[in-house]
């Protein structure tokens, strides 16, 4: 049979299992059709635009302001989540308390709840007459229809990324390492600062980056609470939609390209961080 022959020519390692051609073919075809070609269209469109036009629409004052809002609020929310996510992960991994399993399941709510639902719910909470807004308003704290509102929505969206990134690492962190620190004379705080935090830092950073990347592109949960004032509370994804509604395809495409490049960059950074920490700590 031609079996040995085809094996010799094959670019993959031989295997006795069948179905490589079929499954690999399906995978590649589906991936190309659904993901690669459509995504490529955006870059081809951008490339066809010419540099000056691209800069003019992709980096207009309004677009720049939108980037500032999107990236700024996503970074702020990421920071909030890095701290609170670590707290939640810590409590879930380390302590016993009633209802822990329910709480743990609740952490995934933002993954499961449609973003539009989250958006109107948060707005109902933080609007000046809302459940929480009515108490915050007299304190001079405006949340809904300000950048703070955007941050609140992105904190909601991003929390599980940090918790789920940190949790397994925290659980795997051997108790003996902390005991070792204690036998060497370290206080609990020193152990936390010098042993635990550095050990979970890569995971924390990954969680932050994932939450940040998601926050930059987030749309549904933000638009209701944001107020959408151009230059102040208009996020980049909303600007894309606005441009589309005005049939300004070039503007939409250019802004989308900038955002995509930014998120790929974030993805790259995450991978580099993970690879570096893997190399060093041998995990």
């Amino acid at each position, binding site marked *: 049979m031609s079996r040995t022959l085809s094996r010799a020519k094959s670019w993959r390692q031989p295997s006795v299992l069948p179905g490589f051609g079929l499954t690999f073919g399906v995978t590649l075809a589906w991936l190309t059709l659904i993901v690669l070609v459509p995504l490529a269209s955006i870059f081809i469109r951008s490339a066809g635009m010419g540099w000056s036009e691209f800069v003019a629409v992709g980096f207009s004052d309004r677009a720049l302001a939108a980037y500032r809002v999107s990236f700024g609020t996503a970074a702020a929310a990421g920071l909030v989540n890095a701290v609170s996510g670590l707290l939640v992960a810590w409590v879930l991994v380390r302590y016993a308390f009633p209802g822990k399993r329910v709480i743990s399941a609740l952490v995934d709510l933002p993954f499961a709840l449609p973003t539009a639902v989250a958006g109107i719910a948060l707005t109902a909470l933080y609007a000046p007459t809302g459940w929480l807004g009515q108490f915050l308003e007299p304190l001079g704290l405006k949340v809904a229809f300000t950048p703070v509102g955007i941050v609140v929505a992105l904190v909601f969206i991003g929390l599980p990324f940090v918790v789920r990134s940190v949790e397994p690492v925290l659980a795997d962190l*051997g108790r*003996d*390492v902390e*005991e*070792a*620190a*204690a*036998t*060497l*004379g*370290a*206080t609990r705080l*020193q152990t936390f600062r*010098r*042993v635990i935090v*550095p*050990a979970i*830092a890569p995971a924390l950073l990954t969680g932050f980056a994932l939450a940040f990347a998601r926050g930059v592109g987030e749309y549904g949960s933000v638009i209701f609470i944001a107020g959408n004032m151009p230059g102040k509370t208009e996020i980049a994804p909303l600007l894309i939609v606005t441009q589309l509604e005005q049939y300004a395809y070039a503007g939409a495409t250019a802004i989308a390209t900038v955002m995509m490049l930014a998120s790929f960059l974030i993805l790259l950074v995450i991978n580099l961080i993970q690879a570096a920490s893997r190399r*060093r*700590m*041998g*995990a």
Partner: protein
Amino acid sequence: MIRVQNVTKRFGDFAALHGIDLEVRPGEFIALLGPSGSGKTTLLRIIAGLEFQDSGQVLFSGEDVSDRKVADRHVGFVFQHYALFRHMTVADNVAFGLTVRKRRDRPSRAAIAARAEELLRLVQLDGLGDRYPAQLSGGQRQRVALARALAIEPRLLLLDEPFGALDAKVRKDLRRWLRELHKQMGLTSVFVTHDQEEALELADRVVVMNNGVIEQVGTPEEIYMHPATPFVSHFVGETNRIPAGPASGGARDEVHFRPHDVEVVREGGEALLVDNVFRKGGAWRVEGALAEGGLIVEIDIDVAQPRPNPGETVLIRPVRSRVFNANPEGAQP
């Protein structure tokens, strides 16, 4: 002098330690030997302050440290899986205990670095200070863990299964080396092991533990030659056990003898039906069943003597044996 007095510890319903008394003299190297679940690691951790006894005291030089936290006891502890800080270099690992001291007790940065270097030289890892633990072999990590524990100049060094995670060859080398190091530094040390060979080779005195109690404390020689209980006799070294006297329903004594404490005789011995024979070191290891009762027995006979063949019957007689009374092996009265 370390003294453990009447220490008891329970985990839920499980009695991990039951009325433990132990003395460790200055400069001694002590092995806690026992099967898993015998309480040896719990005892080690209680001495360290990583675990706290339910009752009883731990005394360091006459002072009760039972309520002292681990950080205040100044014991060096080497963990079974080393517990090195993976994100720190080897040198930073070793220096950790010095860098966490309160400012007024803390040596200068340069002094700490010098001390770390000195310790790394002591454990023969000089030049590897900049590596990360992940870049070292198991034996090297073990020595980093040791250097790190020694850095705080402990009054007592505790080692939990120090060679448990290493392969046989490295284990043997490291054992010899640790013995030397102990002698050279004059440290008081206690280590936990389930490997009798390790305990007998290294320790000045061996503490054999089982089911949360100490079965026997003695020099390796005493433990091997004069086991105090059937458990020790059976757990340390190889032992044949045969019932003494006629079976009579009630309590029955047991005769224990080592395979090499047997001689082949012309007459008057027990008949052994040889089943299997192979060379074991300088002896023939003969496995067979006693003609009377059919119990399986293993004996060693000198290779100078003729090799018995399977199927033959030889007459054997223990030259040294011990008689223990009736309780099933290992059970507590």
